[in-house]
């Protein structure tokens, strides 16, 4: 608590930002009890300023996606606090929360209802929140993600992976949220489409002043989109660093250094060192 407060005041003093849009303090997520108990997330704290993009990086099972799911209520908050726009989130989340925070899922093949047209998918959030002029807003949402009105009445099986992910982004943005949680939004897509989606996300953030939390195991993706990031391992935050440090290969933590090495892919030196060690 103390450390979080002092860190906050330092940030304010330095004039780096206004109040953080998202503040996570000592978040814990625990599944099961007894010998089945799994501590998916242990004491993770970070904060994101309005309009910033924050990365969560780590290997599979490091708890990075669970942090996202805990923020939006798909995973339980076992301890700690989550503040969105200065207000602590309630259990269960209210409609105002869902208007502020939206999520884009990893697999665009699984995140769209297979029997609903694009039109239905996009009009659902508007209907839930009693929004008017659905017609205009749906066409506008399609335009924002670079799709024309011809896509409006297609079913998901008539769309490619990249188009589906664009629809998923349009669905997340149609309620005009302030925070977008991105759970590996490009990992299910092939390389060229990945770049398109990343550029789209980058552009949308600047245009709409969105705040992003991006979860990825791909350091290049995080370095491209985010300013700051948290490296996670075994449910704990290992090191908070910046994208600049990542790009230049400077990392104070050994595990982060290891990840950077791994992201450079296959290198003869790594293999040589490894075989020398054997």
């Amino acid at each position, binding site marked *: 608590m103390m450390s979080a407060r002092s860190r906050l005041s330092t940030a304010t003093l330095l004039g780096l930002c206004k109040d953080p849009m998202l503040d996570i303090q000592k978040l814990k997520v625990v599944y099961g009890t007894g010998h089945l108990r799994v501590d998916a997330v242990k004491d993770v704290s970070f904060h994101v300023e309005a309009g910033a993009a924050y990365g969560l990086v780590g290997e599979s099972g490091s708890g990075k996606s669970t942090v996202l799911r805990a923020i939006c209520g798909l995973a339980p908050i076992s301890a700690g606090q989550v503040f969105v726009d200065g207000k602590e989130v309630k259990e269960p989340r209210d409609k105002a929360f*869902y208007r502020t*925070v*939206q999520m884009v899922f990893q697999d665009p093949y699984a995140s769209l209802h297979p029997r609903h047209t694009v039109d239905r998918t996009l009009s659902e*959030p508007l209907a*839930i*929140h009693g929004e008017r002029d659905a017609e205009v807003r749906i066409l506008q949402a399609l335009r924002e993600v670079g799709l024309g009105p011809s896509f409006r009445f*297609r*079913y998901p099986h008539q769309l490619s992976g990249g188009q589906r992910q664009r629809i998923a982004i349009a*669905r997340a943005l149609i*309620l005009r949220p302030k925070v977008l949680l991105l759970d590996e939004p490009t990992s299910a897509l092939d390389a060229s489409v990945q770049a398109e989606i990343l550029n789209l996300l980058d552009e949308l953030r600047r245009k709409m002043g969105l705040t992003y939390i991006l979860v990825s195991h791909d350091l290049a993706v995080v370095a491209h989109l985010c300013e700051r990031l948290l490296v996670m391992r075994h449910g704990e935050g290992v090191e908070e660093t910046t994208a600049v440090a990542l790009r230049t290969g400077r990392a104070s933590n050994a595990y982060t250094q290891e990840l950077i090495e791994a992201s450079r892919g296959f290198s003869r030196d790594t293999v040589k060192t490894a075989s020398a060690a054997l």
Partner: protein
Amino acid sequence: MAGAPPLPQPSGLQAWLLSSEPASRWQARLGRGYLGWRAFTKNPLAVLGLAIVILLVLVAILAPLIAPYSPVAGGDLRTERLLPPSGTFWFGTDDQGRDIFSRVVYGSRITLWVVMLVAVIATPIGVMIGTVAGYHGGWIDTVLMRITDIFLAFPRLILALAFVAALGPGIENAIIAISITSWPPYARIARAETLTIRNSDFIAAVKLQGASTPRIIFGHVIPLCISSVIVRVTLDMAGIILTAAGLGFLGLGAQPPMPEWGAMVATGRNYLIDQWWVAAMPGLAIFVVSLGFNLLGDGLRDVLDPKAAK
């Protein structure tokens, strides 16, 4: 794109239906329906089943126009009793001198009535209980599924017999009895489908839009379970018709002089050796209609539920 394979000579309507860029909700829906219809018509037996079911519906609607005689008024017992099939009496006459063809034609109304009511009563009960249990999980699931197990543990005909015995014989009570005993399998299927859907991302996505539980169940879960339930209901129709006929045969369903097929078979039992047509004609009708529903159900399964097809 992926949805529209190239066709040899697409006519205007076909091209419109198969358009990968539908211009309206209706075009998208019709296009989808058309693709399903094309898959369905590839199976000639399924089309035969559909034809039989449509024929049943037409005969039931047009019964007064088709039937040459009254189904209930008896004929002259000296000259018109137990006549074999002929040009005058196509299916022969029964022990009351009534035209069996007319009775079979009017009997289709009762059969259709039973089938429709059972479908309308049992399907929603089964789907609601199954999806609610599957979606909520926990104690709601346990309670609902144990109730389902209790109903499943009763043999259908015996429970129907007990109900009819308690409520009194009659076609309405037979329908209620059959409905009460036929929903548990639908609940099971709906629950199993719901369990596979409830943790999917698209349900999580609609939850994150703030959707209420009824909205998720009705708008997002049920549309995905309904097709396998429809297939099962259609396949069950034959069993329902047979159960209704069985209750009629035992004198617990439709009461005389209603031209119910099962009851007609029961009267024919006394003359089975010498006047075979009295039992055989309504029996044939039961057989053809049951077969029709079974073939239709098989075809629907291939279209709606590709997972279950072999």
